[in-house]
């Protein structure tokens, strides 16, 4: 059984947010909600100052605290490591959001349409969730199940994202994790993310 993971090269990411928009387009996420995004931070003092870019998404942890705290079982982990939410089961208690240190989850409270009034035909077609639930990146599971890469990976203009099977030693993600000092965010939390970063 595969264990899906992703490696992101922070040296190469230019902070353009193509991934942010591709994800939104793929999943028709509601207003104000971003399953993938690029966080920024300034380091240094002028003139030796720069911004750093950190693309983030759900880490699909091997040891997901969100699944543990979910009272309904809406959050569950597939055998291939993808952590999913069954939007019909979620009651919107947000305890998962209070447990996950990475911040990929968002609560879709209400009124998420981008244009006032009714949802567009596109939103109606693509949204498999309703109001009142917590939502997050699903590693583009519908694409992965067809053998495609996630939307954020495909669109990235600098090709700084790789997706694949962490348990396959031949896969690029596995090799990067083994060779290039790829590390996850906040490893000390013990959640064992499947998303790794190289570079700085």
């Amino acid at each position, binding site marked *: 059984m595969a264990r899906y993971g992703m490696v992101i090269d922070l040296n190469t990411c*230019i902070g353009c*947010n193509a991934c942010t928009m591709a994800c939104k387009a793929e999943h028709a996420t509601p207003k104000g909600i971003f399953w993938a995004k690029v966080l920024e931070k*300034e380091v240094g003092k002028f003139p030796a100052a*720069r911004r750093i870019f950190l693309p983030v998404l759900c880490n699909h942890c091997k040891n997901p605290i969100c699944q543990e705290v979910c009272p309904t079982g809406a959050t569950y982990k597939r055998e291939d490591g993808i952590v999913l939410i069954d939007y019909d089961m979620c009651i919107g208690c947000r305890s998962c959001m209070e447990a996950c240190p990475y911040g990929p989850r968002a609560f879709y409270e209400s009124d998420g349409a981008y244009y006032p009034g009714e949802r567009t*035909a596109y939103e109606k*077609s693509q949204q498999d969730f309703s109001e009142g639930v917590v939502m997050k990146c699903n590693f583009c599971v519908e694409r992965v199940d067809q053998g495609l890469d996630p939307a954020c990976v495909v*669109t990235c*203009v*600098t090709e700084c994202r790789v997706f694949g099977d962490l348990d396959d030693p031949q896969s690029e993600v596995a090799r990067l994790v083994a060779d290039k000092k790829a590390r996850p965010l906040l490893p000390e939390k013990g959640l064992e993310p499947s998303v790794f970063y190289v570079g700085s």
Partner: protein
Amino acid sequence: MYGPAESEEWIHSVCDMCFAACGILARKKNGVLVKIEGDPNCPASEGHLCPKGQAGLIGVYDPSRVKAPLIRTNPQKGIGVDPRWQEISWETALEILTDKLTKVREKDPRGLVVSSFDQIAGSYFIRPAWAPAFGTPNSDWVGYFCGNYLHASMYLTNGSFHSDFDLDYCNYAILLGNQQGFMAGLNANVTARKMADARRRGMRVVTVDPVGTNAAAKADEWVPIRPGTDGAFILSLINVLLNELNCYDRDFLSRRTNAAYLVGEDGGYLKEGRDGKPLVWDLKSQGAVPFDEANIDPAIEGLFSAGGERCQPAFQVLKEHVRDYAPERVEPITTIPAANIRRIAKEFGAAARIGSTIVIDGEVLPYRPVAVNIYRGAGAHKHGTHTALAVQILNMIVGAYYVPGGHRGPNLVGPAGRWGPGATKEGLITPPSAIGHGARYYEFEERSPDDLGLHQLFPITTNRSPMYEINLTNPQDFSLPYKPELLIVCRRNLLMNNGNPEIIAAALKKIPFIVTFSTHLDEVAELADLVLPEAHYLERFDLFPNRPSHTMSPATGHFYWGLRQPVVEPLGQSRRWIDVLFEVADRMGFLGDVYKLMNVNLGLKEPYKLDPNQRYTMDQIYDCWTKSLFGPERGIEWFKKNGYHKVPRAVEEKYPGPFLKPRFPVYFENMLRAKKSVAKVAAQLGHPWDTSDYQPVPDWKPCPAYDAGKSPYDLFVVNFKIPFHSLSVTTQNPWLNDLAEHHPYAYKILINAETGKRKGIKDGEEIWVESVAGKVKGEAKLTECIHPEVVGIAGVFGSWAKGKPVARGKGVHFNSLLPVSLERVDPVSTGLDSCVRVKISRAA
């Protein structure tokens, strides 16, 4: 509706969220457009798509779109004044438009002004065909900033429209006032990928910019610079290379440029006979000989005497001229430490590997893996032409021109020799007409101008758009023999993209009738008399959106042609404005003339030429065009099905430098002749005119803001680009707006943290930024990533039109701070000076 698709189709089309025109695949599920992805078969996208392209999808569903023709019923015009639109039928609208245009044409066809940044319609149909057939020269009221100085400087120095460099081999790149390769600038998609590969390979990037942009964030070195002083920096680099390090490519300079051309005391070439060829000093025969004589060894330095006249090679003039730009003198001008200037010059010179070669595709080519790339930030100032020419000289003196790793202009040579540059009789490069944009910078007309751009007063530029506004504001100044009577606008936000909106609004109110083709009731539609619903790009049918002049990127290694075809049905009664204008031409009886001109300009061949007595749908015209270029096998139906036709570039098409005869100018002798011509024209107009910028060698001259820095206007304000917005067209996109609202910088006013602290401004506070032209209010963002003397405002934000509810009130409008006057345009190129002094204060 969520669930598996009953029907699914992928349609090839082309994005239009910026000019790069990346190929896309639009996915429709059960007839609904649900995703846009990069077309893997398009060399520019290769399956990738930037944030703007991804966001284009939601724009199709925008309920604020103009859906029907509208006529103004309120005679009062003004910013924020309700036009009281009344909906009318297309037939009525066409009658009104035809009637008005007929009257204008009868009175004086030059009274028609067309303003559009629709690159496809403008460059293929309007400027070369429809407007001339109508009879007006006033069809290029386009941009005010980057293009003006840049394109002219490029046509003059590299024979092509734009500036680019070879990311496949470059090892050291200096980005001067631009973020090429970091999701801004030309062909951003493919250059971002190439830049990423180059950086992975170890290429070093130096960005010179007052703002710590996305490019500066990734660069190996960010050189913060005081705005408007880039020319001094570049001239200082040239000085160090020529006069301290003795580091320059003598071979390239003597054989491939006019460096060796002998120049007399008046600055003009020494010529054989009266109008003969320029002479050079042959070191072998120790005498002056024509430049193109065989087997000579031309000197590029030294002082000589020929025909009793004292002379020196043009390069000698340049070398002496740049001595004035010692790093110590340039440091207080630019705020760049002299030691850094020297170090960068040394690094640049060393990285250029002068004299080295590389084998590519079996050819031995000169290898100069360095480039300086200039764009808007550095050039859009008064005297910006000088800065651009200095940059080009810097590339030339190390021989990094159209060779592996170096500077290049896009598509100087066409596929399979279809086009190539020409040369003046002095042997200097002239652009091929395929990408030439009518640029002729060596012959000058000495007659009074009769176009709003005042062509003859500004011969060395590609567009004179700020002069349209200045002429409208003060028509008595240049006493044109007619008045503008009718303005047609499409995809050109004249209110937001010029200077302060009040100035342009006052100018526009003088035009009796304004027609806009609009997707939204935007800031310029607000001042229109007739608004016609324009198609959204996903509803449009545009052939060959990648233009050889600049949006067919050499970085792809291919020449490529695509088709933007409709993905969705037009909303409401939207129509493509070209179709409307063709119909009007038909009603007025000049469509046949339009076809004749199109036959020439589109290069249509028998049997596909358009018959002026027939009428064609756009589909048929495109079919003629594609078959003319690619034969009967590749008609429009082929393109609809397959998307892109591409051919790989041969080595001499990638690196034409060693294969070309025409030379590149390091000395601009034509400027002396232009100076005389312009002075004559100005005298004819009875207008005092400053021609001091027409010099054969560039200088740095301070722009108005440089000298004006006394209290209370003590800071500079500059504009810069962010990766997920482009011009004003993206501001109404709700996804991009959502992103911008969450972004830490996008909609804010950037202030240096130290400067902000000194002025008692806290992060997140509302502040005013005020110049002599206007004031704007926004949220302060204290940051380390900006020069202490500079305030930064990104993009074209701060929309106010009620017809753009998503964009309205978001961000800050930089252009409101810009004054527009003759004193503030670059005298050579008419580029509007885009930095100005401001003061900031707390808004509370």
